[in-house]
């Protein structure tokens, strides 16, 4: 968690154009606090890597300014910026040993030998590479090379550590372990981490705050929980996890509370929602939907009969795909708490889907 409220990186009205036609980053504003674990999340080509490379100094800004710890670094070379980067390809120097790699950033600026030795040792311990100091990178696994890249950047004691898709080349098991390790590392060193990723699970599990990018713009900046439960647009709702979207046909106010009419469900009352805005869609996460054979008797639930079309079993969960009488496709995910539970679901079977209307997220786009 952030220790202070101090802004360490301030991205102000930054735009990046390649040539005259491609706008990679479009008027982005961003404040990152000291000690945060911040994620830039978005599909490939959304401009997140370009934004990170602009913070590192590898891309020039077309418009705007970037401030690191209050200093405008827009025209400062990467060499002189107080940030360090972990590259997607690791970029570990192939002809140097682990120790030489980690000490490189200290050697080139003329740090005294004794200080280099102690700081290198400390960094190698930090990423748990002790014992491999004399290895060359081609004798290391992908995960170990990743650690070398981390140690090499952290040994410089940067104000911000930038990570460009650092886990994308690792296999699933190792990726999960490294996610935990990165969080532990970040808490240990207290340095601000900015990670670029297209993997929403990775961003949700690691970051304190996430900026979702699409088409060069920042669409929403929020904590992982807010982002998932209260997405601000259908793009964000759809990009982060699975979502059912209903089209709103009519908007009204009944007894001071927002009422949205949806074809499949009729009027839905949403207490406590801002009534001044116009809403076009209602979003509902699949795991919020309950599935039952009989119509639930509890009052205040939304319930709709639907036919099971597809049952996709993925071990811990089953993703159930339904179709209502009106032809609306809905997906629900249920935990397979009972070993033989999922066998009860037969394709074509009529079932009841139900949920609490509070789970609806109204969307304006």
């Amino acid at each position: 968690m952030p220790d202070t409220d101090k802004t360490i990186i301030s991205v102000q009205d930054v735009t990046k154009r390649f040539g005259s036609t491609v706008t990679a980053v479009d008027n982005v504003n961003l404040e990152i606090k000291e000690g945060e674990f911040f994620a830039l999340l978005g599909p490939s080509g959304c401009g997140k890597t370009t934004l990170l490379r602009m913070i590192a100094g590898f891309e020039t800004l077309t418009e705007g300014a970037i401030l690191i710890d209050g200093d405008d670094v827009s025209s400062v070379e990467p060499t002189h910026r107080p940030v360090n980067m972990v590259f997607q390809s690791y970029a570990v120097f192939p002809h140097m040993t682990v120790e030489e790699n980690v000490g490189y950033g200290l050697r080139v600026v003329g740090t005294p030998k004794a200080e280099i030795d102690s700081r290198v040792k400390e960094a190698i311990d930090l990423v748990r590479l002790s014992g491999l100091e004399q290895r060359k990178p081609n004798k290391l696994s992908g995960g170990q090379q990743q650690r070398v890249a981390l140690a090499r950047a952290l040994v410089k004691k940067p104000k911000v550590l930038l990570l460009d898709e650092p886990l994308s080349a690792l296999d699933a098991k190792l990726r999960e372990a490294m996610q935990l390790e990165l969080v532990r590392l970040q808490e240990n060193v207290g340095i601000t981490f900015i990670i670029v990723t297209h993997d929403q699970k990775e961003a949700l599990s690691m970051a304190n705050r996430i900026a979702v990018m699409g088409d060069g713009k920042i669409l929403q900046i929020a904590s992982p929980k807010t982002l998932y439960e209260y997405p601000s647009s259908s793009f964000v709702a759809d990009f982060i996890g699975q979502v059912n979207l209903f089209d709103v046909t009519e908007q009204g106010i009944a007894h001071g509370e927002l009422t949205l009419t949806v074809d499949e469900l009729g009027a839905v009352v949403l207490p406590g929602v801002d009534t001044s805005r116009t809403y076009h869609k209602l979003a509902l996460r699949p795991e919020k939907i309950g599935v039952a054979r009989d119509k639930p008797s509890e009052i205040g639930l939304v319930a709709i009969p639907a036919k099971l079309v597809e049952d996709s079993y993925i071990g811990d969960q089953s993703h159930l795909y339904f179709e209502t009488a009106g032809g609306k496709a809905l997906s629900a995910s249920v935990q397979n708490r009972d070993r033989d539970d999922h066998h009860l679901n037969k394709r074509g079977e009529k079932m009841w889907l139900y949920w609490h209307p509070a789970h609806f997220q109204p969307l304006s786009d």
Partner: protein
Amino acid sequence: MSRRRLNVNPLDYSRKLWMRSAMGFTFFFLYFPIISLIIFSFNDSKRNITWQGFTLKYYEKAFNNNQLHEAFANSLLIAGISTLTATVLGAMLGLALYRFRFPMQGPYEGIVHLPIVIPEICLAVAMVAFFATVEVPLGLVTITVSHIAFSIPFVAVVIRARMAGFNRSLEEASADLGASQWQTFWNVTFPYMKPGLVAGALLAFTLSLDDFVITFFTSGPGSTTFPIKIYSMVRFSVTPEVNAASTVLIVITLALTTLALWVQSKSQRNESNA
């Protein structure tokens, strides 16, 4: 029938007669002259037409031939200077072609590589015409300049090919860690280029050492190189002394080529070891 055809492995073709004879003829035409040259360098006969018995005296004679010595020293001097210069310039050219995008790059690259494909005789005539225009007397200097000129594209091609496999992030990582551009070049880029530099330099060296056509055209009085000296000796008569001198040249060229291949395969092995 079809099954048998499917099971043919690459070496099986050597069992076919036509394949074997093609291979045999190729080896024969390639290596018979060279082997007979080497054998007859040990021939104890002045006319060197029939085998008269084994001797090393023509090697002795060649080693004691002062003109041959001088020509060999010239060749080494020219090859040394031109290799050094061509390697530096060619490496810079190869690096620039890999690194930068600039207007007219395509045509420029084509022109740079032209000396590799155009006939040597044309290059030689062009060189002589050029030196005549700028009024530089023909001699060691003109030979060296010409050798540098035709070696540069070979080095550039080797470096360019080497750099194609380079990960640009390495240079970015170096800059990111606080290294100046100069430090980045010597610490990161140069070590990666090294096998290419060695290969390119050895290529330039052997090209220079045994070049005849361009050297012949651009040489002046007192600037005889080893190949030209041998050619002039042959014009009088093919004595075993010529064979002996040629054999020495073959051995040197072969040794250098082997060294180049060895350096290259060693560096490849280092990189692919995972």
